[in-house]
């Protein structure tokens, strides 16, 4: 009963021609905003990806791009604001308050809804991270506006409304969703779905500060501790330039070594399909796909992965896909650029060896001279 099952045609019939009929109040809503997700001094890269996307939308609408930065008063929060300008923000709404030190739903929801109600954006984008999804749902409900989750494409229509496209039914279908009569039009977007815009050194621009009237005593939820993931800096799958992945076709956890060996030879990250995680061969943070990570590497090499739609939606952004599969009809070949119909257990070692020869500094120097 959530958005997607809604059939397109009857919805259209029920809504006349489905043109936006904005009330005068909502007509005041202008500009494209991005929530800049910042925790422990680090801005989540998805926020910059969204600034890049916001720029494109804002140019079409002829409006400005703004970033919203929330955090504890201090250097880290200010740095986040400064970075937002380098990735294309024209304005930054800055809310500094000690209660915003760690992410918590109550104060962040209050901060965001207050800023939105005061400055009235027409579009508000957030990363579809655990933080972004937690916050977006509460903010949208409080504002009683529409929210489209996990979008893969954003576009502005002829009548200037936002068309947000997202996969549904496990990626078998895509649908384009509009928030016609309410503002802001909200959407969350997964990390790595939008391209990272270039960073341009820029001075700090216009900052509008917002004061949050909330005392710690009035906030019920307390953060007792934060336990960082032990290997979090090791598996950087989503942001790796080269990814090697394996699936059930490898047959056994031992054979997965072949994937890891190739990955380590070329300095790539390794990942896998979902059943590999379900079998316990690898941990969940290595899973690529709809319910795992979306990746956008320059090169994706996958071996023994059939290419089910739920896997494909996670890798379609790769610049180049090399697929190894014994079945020439495997769906992975529909999106691969280079295909090898052969046994991965033989192909992977041959490829690893070839890379090793090609990349060994010794050989390179010889080639150069």
């Amino acid at each position, binding site marked *: 009963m959530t958005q997607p099952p809604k059939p397109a045609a009857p919805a259209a019939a029920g809504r006349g021609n489905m043109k936006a009929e904005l009330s005068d109040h909502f007509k005041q809503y202008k500009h494209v905003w991005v929530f800049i997700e910042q925790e422990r001094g680090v801005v989540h890269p998805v926020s910059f990806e969204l600034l890049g996307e916001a720029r494109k939308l804002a140019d079409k609408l002829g409006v400005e791009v703004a970033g919203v930065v929330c955090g504890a008063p201090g250097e880290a929060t200010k740095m986040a604001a400064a970075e937002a300008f380098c990735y294309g923000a024209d304005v930054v709404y800055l809310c500094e308050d000690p209660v915003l030190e760690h992410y918590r739903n109550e104060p962040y929801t209050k901060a965001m809804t207050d800023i939105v109600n005061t400055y009235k954006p027409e579009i508000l984008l957030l990363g579809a991270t655990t*933080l972004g999804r937690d916050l977006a749902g509460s903010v949208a409900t409080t504002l009683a506006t529409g929210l489209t989750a996990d979008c893969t494409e954003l576009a502005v229509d002829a009548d200037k409304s936002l068309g947000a496209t997202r996969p549904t039914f496990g990626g078998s279908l895509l649908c384009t969703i509009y928030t016609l009569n309410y503002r802001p039009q909200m959407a969350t977007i997964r990390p790595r779905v939008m391209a990272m815009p270039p960073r341009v050194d820029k001075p700090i621009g216009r900052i509008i500060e917002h004061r949050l009237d909330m005392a710690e005593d009035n906030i019920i*939820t307390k953060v007792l501790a934060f336990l960082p993931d032990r290997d979090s800096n090791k598996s950087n799958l989503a942001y790796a330039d080269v990814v090697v992945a394996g699936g059930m076709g490898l047959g056994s956890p031992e054979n997965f070594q072949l994937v890891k060996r190739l990955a380590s030879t070329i300095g790539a990250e390794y990942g896998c399909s979902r059943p590999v995680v379900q079998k316990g061969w690898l941990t969940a943070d290595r899973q690529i796909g709809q319910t795992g990570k979306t990746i956008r590497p320059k090169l994706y090499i996958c071996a023994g992965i059939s290419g089910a739609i739920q896997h494909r939606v996670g890798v379609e952004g790769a610049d180049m896909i090399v697929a190894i599969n014994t079945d020439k009809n495997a769906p992975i070949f529909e999106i*691969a650029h280079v295909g090898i119909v052969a046994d991965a257990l033989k192909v992977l070692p041959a490829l690893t060896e070839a890379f090793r020869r090609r990349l060994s500094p010794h050989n390179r120097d010889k080639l150069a001279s």
Partner: protein
Amino acid sequence: MHIVVCIKQVPDSAQIRVHPVTNTIMRQGVPTIINPYDLFALEEALRLRDKFGGEVTVLTMGPPMAEDSLRRALTYGADRAVLLTDRFFAGSDTLATSFALATAIARISEVYGKPEIVFTGKQTIDGDTAQVGPGIAKRLDLLQLTYVSKIGKLDLDGGSIEVERRAEGGVQVLKTRLPVLITMLEGTNDMRRGSMKDALRAARAEVVKWGAKDAGIEDMTKCGLRGSPTVVKRVFAPGGRTDKAEFITFTDKTPIEFGDELVEAIFKRQPAVEDDLIKHAHEFAAY
């Protein structure tokens, strides 16, 4: 203690087909299941009930046939099932869905006692939004704990709860006041198999069926299509890539010839990758 668990009946997405011409979902023959993410919530609720006593009520909003899923939940050991079903709910988006569910939970509180915890799954596999949980929390003014991976100390008398919550790059340990809404992370437990006694009880149990009015919904404009700010304008199948893959054969060459040819093909198409890899190889060698 009283716990409400929201579950949704969904088509098994592994078996979904799209009609090649009309681009609509072909539901023919597609079995429906309880949204797999909701089972983690249900199992967690059952464990808390087994430990602290009390009752678990499962709630779903959906068509009459969603009763199957509720009965299934009863088989696992839930104590009561409520089906919220009304044609006014058709076409609900997440805002309208959470409005209807929140109102029904308020009504459940009046009839069967106020819940200390409302559980939802992390997200559904059809809607896939993860928005309904937060939406319910906001409307009922419950504190919201999303992506919970572990429930720690639960103090019913003191009215407090401690949980571990998955956050970006780590786990947050949070303490808050009851009542709360928890969206449960997947993989946190394994659904039990109900006993023969539960199974027989479930087969005979009466599923409570409420229409909008029964659930205490007065403002119909907040339901269904009318209550949904979002509108689906277009549904379409993902387009495949138009250019076909270049195939490199393996069997007719030595591994060395094959490897070189493949690496060449990769570098030819992606020169940037070659530079990256060489840089990496040099750093690696220097190191």
